């Protein structure tokens, strides 16, 4: 990938960093301004935006890649995803991280930990289901 293309993709990916940071920085003031329930809906909307936009950026990067670049991207995605998940679970096990997030969202640590664990396990389970379904579809299309 050329450096100008890399720059283009990097610029396109900026909202993926800015939006969550702005949201996290304004959680407390949002809660006070619009209430906890509305903040939860905004959090859900931010999560959906980040996921869909990440998908869009990934599609833009993949378009126009040759087979060697695609193989590199597949390798990076495969191992990067696994490393990211392990990294998150490791962070989740560290009390300072738990305290940091609990302070950020102003919730008791136990409640927060339970919610995050359920979320993380849910992601892994649904990813597993997604992989099984995608694999079945791939083979079905080639029978």
């Amino acid at each position, binding site marked *: *990938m*050329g450096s100008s293309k890399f720059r283009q993709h990097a610029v396109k990916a900026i909202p993926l960093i800015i939006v969550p940071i702005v949201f996290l920085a304004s959680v407390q003031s949002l809660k006070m301004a619009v209430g906890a329930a509305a903040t939860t809906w905004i959090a859900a909307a931010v999560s959906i935006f980040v996921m869909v936009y990440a998908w869009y950026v990934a599609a833009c990067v993949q378009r126009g890649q*040759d*087979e*060697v*670049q695609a*193989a590199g991207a597949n390798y990076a995605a495969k191992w990067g995803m696994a490393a990211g998940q392990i990294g998150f679970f490791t962070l989740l096990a560290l009390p300072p991280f738990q305290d940091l997030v609990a302070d950020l969202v102003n919730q008791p640590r136990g409640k927060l930990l339970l919610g995050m664990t359920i979320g993380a396990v849910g992601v892994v389970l649904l990813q597993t289901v997604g992989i099984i379904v995608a694999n079945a579809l791939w083979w079905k299309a080639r029978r």
Partner: protein
Amino acid sequence: MKNRIRVLRAEKDLSQAELAEKVGVSRNSINAIENDKFEPSLPLAFRIAEVFALRIEEVFLKE
């Protein structure tokens, strides 16, 4: 799988970037293929062989 791309390029006085443009991949990709770090697909191998006006087995050799 080994290949003779480096030698063939030298004979034709072709840079990696020029070969990359002719077959429609990046220069880094040609470098990876040339150094046996990546085995190209059959269509790409055919395109590379076509540039040198050779048969595929004259460019790519089974070890």
